[in-house]
């Protein structure tokens, strides 16, 4: 009785009008004919797109820093945090002369996210100590085979000349929260 909507089942005999069904069917077809003139709920997808939130969690991006070097240091915290085990990576050591490419001394030579496994929860973003991985409001596009859903660095790392804006998701409150990583991790 939490919702006060429970009904007591009454198993009474149907009377004559209920037994011949026709009045009930008439009531039913009146209901359905009303729906014929209702506003349609369909969104004709490629032409019109349903509004998605600015902080929608979609396709990931691996950010570069202000000099264009990759921020990821292949610590593996995102892979550990990932509940769907969608993230794999291989770490490599930065060579001399690659300082412009990778910010830290260690970097991910391979970084793959299986978009079919990913549940877009955003825990990788939360786990990342280097502000390297973010979810964006881009939708992962469809494809015909499973292999093409394993996104490598070619698709994940943002282009130097075409940076992907993540400031919408990184509001003041989020930035503040990220100052105290221990809040979420030690719980």
């Amino acid at each position, binding site marked *: 009785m939490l919702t006060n909507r429970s009904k007591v089942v009454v198993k009474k005999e149907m009377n004559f009008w209920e037994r011949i069904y026709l009045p009930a069917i008439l009531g039913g*077809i009146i209901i*359905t*004919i009303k729906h*014929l003139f*209702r506003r349609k*709920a*369909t969104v*004709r997808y490629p032409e019109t797109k349903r509004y998605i939130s600015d902080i929608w969690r979609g396709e990931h991006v691996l950010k570069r820093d202000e000099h264009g070097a990759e921020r990821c240091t292949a610590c593996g915290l995102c892979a550990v945090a990932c509940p769907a085990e969608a993230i794999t990576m291989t770490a490599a050591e930065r060579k001399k002369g690659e300082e412009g490419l990778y910010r830290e001394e260690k970097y991910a030579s391979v970084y793959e996210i299986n978009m079919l496994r990913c549940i877009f929860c955003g825990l990788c973003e939360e786990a990342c100590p280097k502000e390297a991985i973010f979810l964006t409001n881009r939708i992962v596009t469809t494809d015909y085979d499973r292999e093409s859903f394993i996104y490598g660095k070619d698709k994940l790392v943002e282009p130097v000349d075409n940076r992907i804006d993540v400031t919408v998701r990184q509001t003041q409150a989020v930035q503040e929260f990220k100052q105290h990583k221990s809040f979420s991790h030690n719980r």
Partner: protein
Amino acid sequence: MIAFLTYKGILVLVIFIITLAVAAYSTYAERKVAAFLQDRIGPDRAGPFGLLQPLADGAKFFFKEEIIPNVSNKVLFVLGPCIAMLTALMAGVVIPWGNTVFLGGKEYALQIADLNIGILYVFGVVSIGVYGIMIGGWSSNNKFSLLGAIRASAQMISYEIAMGLSIIALILMTGTLSLREITLQQAGGIGSHWNFWNVVYQPLGFIIFLVCAFAECNRTPFDLPECETELVGGYHTEYSSMKLGLYLFSEYINMFISSAVISTLYFGGFNFPFMNNVGLSHNWITVLGSAFFFGKVVFFIFFFMWIRWTIPRFRYDQLMNLGWKILLPLAIFNIALTGLVSLLFSR
């Protein structure tokens, strides 16, 4: 004689094409009506408003792989859909699609054959249609097909009885089996002689006939031979490619034909209100009457679909209960009532 044969030949061809076109667009209408009744839009990608969808579906059927199961009876397997399609098309022969037209001083009836036993012919052809389903289900050598076929044929045979009895009451009243004469008796209507359509005199018979027509066409709420939402697909489980297409198509043709029969028997066929008062020539009245006839048919096809997306299907025992214990006695009662009333008031 030559002129007569060419005229009949052309008429057969035209009605054949119209039947196929209506059946093809029924598949489209089914999806559109379903969508609209569920607040959706339905197919709208092929052509404007998706109008080319039936063509796309048909072409798709031809491109599908044709599988004839190894363990099936191959002759019967091919024969099944042929019979289903053939009998579905044959029933259209006796339907009066319109009144007569005068061309060059000669009178032509817009009906392929005015049999004096038109209704019996329709019933005969429809009952052969059961063979198409039964043979298809049997020759597939598949349990589910056979179960579906048995369900379908048991249902069709049971409901044919009540359907036939509901017609007897109508024949008692009209005194003829010819569909053309039954239609002509309903001529005039509102505005001239106050001669109403048969549905006014036979409301109970009409309801029985309508319910039985739903069962005969394997439509919801009697679609349990197929029940695509819970079974694999009934008697045409093993069919693929255009053979499956023929089965599905013959069902839509059956729906078209039964809508035409309902309109002819109970809703005045090609007659329309004020037809004697509009002051047009005979030929124009005929053209207008045919248009009205097709309007009625389209309405009943829509009604079939409307019902389909409104109510759930019966359980099998409920189906048999309704057919044998309710509709059959009701139909007999209707015959007695009609006899009594016509004896007392002698229309």
